């Protein structure tokens, strides 16, 4: 009897393609996405784009830049295009703007005089600090850049290097006077204490220090975008999770087309004065409003519960909210018009939306992903919508800076709607 019941269920499952897809394809697809993102088949550290401004133009600074350019984990940008002119060297303002705009998570400014005192050998011999501008929306990049900078100067061996330097001096120069020895020993003791203090300092405190002396090269770090990181993380997740659920809501809502087709209501509507174009237009309008309202609820909740700064970003929110809403609405209508049944729509939309959300940045930030996955993410609505919301809520950029995201989203919406209109021809007449 138990076997009969199991057999009946198995036969039913075999004939339910939607359930089969959810049971077997979705987990495998998800596993693959996560494996590609976090697995060992790619470099563990994603490549970080770094803008470098060499104000010193000394031998040492050139060597440092050349050394950084040799690093496989870094994409070093020293020039940019300005009004048709290519290869214009970055200056401080341009570097700051690039970080603020999200073109690079980190900029390094090598100041004048760096070549004279490139490294720090204790408090008595401070080096000239390199200035690091960073975007707190990317918590990883500054750490990577900092580490690689210090790697060049052998960050963990500065005491030993100094000792070796002393030994070398004692041997070659003929030793030091008792007074000199005393001062050098004091200096080494101070260096030792400082390294012990570094070792005992909590890593978080070290990471958030604005005066990062954790190696031979002194770095002054300052955030130029996303200064209030916690609140901005909240706005990131409001957008990221919001867009993912917008997609679910839009496809579910557009599924009413399939219900109406099944009940015959669609036939009846189309036998009235309503044309298919008008009908789909009405559905698009409704689904856009629904999605936008969902976003408003999400962001207002983030403001009320997590003190996210919502009301000073209303214009940007309106632009990105409406662009995202109309695109997800068109996406939902396309799915509904291409599916035959509600069950099919449920399975395909779940599959697509979860995959889009994974690579589009709704589940974890895209900067954590390998470059290839980051590029693949650009084919998702999530990535463009989240980028736009990030510009508004993290970077405080003006509305005009949203044009790439708005253009891509609206173009996608138009394309999705046109394809949906074509697919819906099957309902127009037999």
């Amino acid at each position, binding site marked *: 009897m138990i076997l009969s019941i199991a057999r009946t269920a198995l036969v039913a499952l075999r004939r339910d393609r939607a359930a089969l897809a959810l049971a077997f394809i979705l987990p495998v697809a998800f596993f693959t996405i996560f494996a590609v993102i976090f697995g060992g088949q790619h470099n563990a550290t994603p490549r970080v784009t770094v803008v470098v401004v060499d104000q010193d133009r000394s031998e040492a600074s050139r060597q440092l830049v050349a050394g950084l350019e040799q690093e496989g984990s870094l994409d070093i940008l020293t020039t940019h295009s300005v009004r048709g002119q290519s290869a214009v060297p970055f200056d401080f303002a341009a570097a700051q703007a690039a970080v603020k705009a999200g073109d690079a998570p980190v900029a390094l400014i090598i100041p004048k005089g760096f070549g004279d005192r490139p490294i720090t050998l204790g408090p008595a011999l401070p080096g000239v600090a390199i200035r690091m501008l960073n975007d707190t929306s990317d918590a990883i990049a500054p750490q990577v850049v900092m580490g690689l900078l210090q790697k060049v100067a052998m960050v963990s061996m500065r005491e030993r290097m100094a000792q070796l330097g002393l030994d070398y001096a004692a041997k070659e120069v003929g030793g030091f006077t008792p007074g000199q020895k005393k001062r050098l020993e004091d200096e080494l003791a101070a260096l030792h204490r400082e390294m012990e203090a570094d070792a005992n300092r909590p890593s978080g405190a070290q990471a958030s220090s604005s005066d990062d002396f954790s190696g031979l090269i002194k770095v002054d770090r300052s955030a130029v975008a996303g200064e209030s990181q916690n609140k901005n993380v909240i706005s990131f997740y409001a957008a990221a999770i919001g867009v993912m659920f917008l997609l679910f809501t839009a496809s579910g809502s557009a599924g009413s087309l399939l219900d109406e087709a099944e009940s015959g209501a669609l036939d009846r509507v189309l*036998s009235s004065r*309503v044309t298919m174009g008008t009908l789909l237009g009405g559905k698009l309008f409704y689904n856009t409003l629904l999605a936008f309202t969902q976003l408003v609820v999400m962001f207002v909740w983030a403001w009320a519960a997590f003190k996210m700064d919502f009301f000073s970003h209303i214009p940007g929110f309106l632009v990105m909210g409406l662009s995202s809403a109309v695109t997800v609405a068109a996406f939902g209508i396309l799915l509904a018009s291409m599916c035959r049944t509600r069950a099919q729509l449920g399975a395909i939309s779940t599959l697509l939306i979860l995959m889009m959300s994974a690579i589009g940045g709704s589940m974890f930030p895209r900067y954590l992903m390998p470059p290839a996955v980051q590029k693949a993410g650009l084919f998702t609505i999530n990535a463009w919508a989240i980028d736009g919301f990030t510009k508004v809520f993290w970077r405080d950029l003006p509305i005009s800076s949203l044009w790439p995201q708005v253009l891509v989203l609206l173009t996608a919406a138009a394309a999705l709607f046109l394809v949906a209109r074509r697919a819906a021809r099957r309902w127009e007449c037999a």
Partner: protein
Amino acid sequence: MTSSAAPVAQAATRLEPPLAQTPLRVDGLVKRFGQITAIDGINLELRAGECFGLLGPNGAGKSTLIRAIVGRVIPDSGRISVFGAPAASPWARAALGWAPQELAIYPRLTARENLYAFGRYAGLKGAKLREAIAWCLNWATLEDRAGEIAEKLSGGMKRRLNMAVGLIHRPQLALMDEPTVGVDPQSRNRIFEMIEALRAAGTTLIYTTHYMEEAERLCDRVAIMDHGRIIALDTREGLVESAFGKRSQVKARVNGRPQAVAAWVKSHGGRYADDLAQTGGESISGSAEFTVENPSQIAMLLDSAAATGLEVVDLSLRRPTLESVFLHLTGKELRD
């Protein structure tokens, strides 16, 4: 009911510009779905104000014909005009009302909200729409259930709402596709009253069904469809006359030996009904139907039965029905 239905004709959608008087004309209509010919050369012309019945078994092509008339099926060849306008043209859409076989309503809207939605789709608004909703609720006797969610209405109420939604714009030609499917006798009678109210108001109707008694009660003319063709078209009396002339039908219930019953039925050109049963021993009991030119032939049947040892336990004489006509023309029961 007649008084409440009266505004239908007065307020019915006026066609701009005025078109032909013939409500519906179908010429040489053919529709194929792959290898299947659903409609195979249908010609049809309706008269203003009549109730026209389309009879046929499932798969005869009735619904495809209706859907072609409302513009939801594109014919492979042939022409349909509604008051002179091509099917699916704005004029035809305005003049047509359609109650499909399926419950084509929004289940989560109330009865009133459904009427409002479809009224708007038909281009009504403001006072005209409110008036149309009130009329529809009254016509379908749903006034006290107007605020009820459609999916919670009884089967009969859903059917009535389904019809009312199709007539919200007061069309001059209404197409009712099997409106009584799955409803109880009381609801069926209510639907008949609604149809009769429309007829009284002058609305031209096409009524498809596979229930003979409905067609006999409601329709002025009947077309019998089979395999996508109209195989007969006339008034009920005309159909019976052309199929049976002045002949009547006799139904006799007999007991007797199987061979004797068979010989008796065969010798008088009759046919078995489907209630033959063994009654014990070698006897069987069952009914047979015969066509007779005049009632005096009944005596011959009875004499012949007695002569072969059959016991006639029941006998009735009746004029042939549409069912008989259908059987005569197609060789099968309507509900096969």
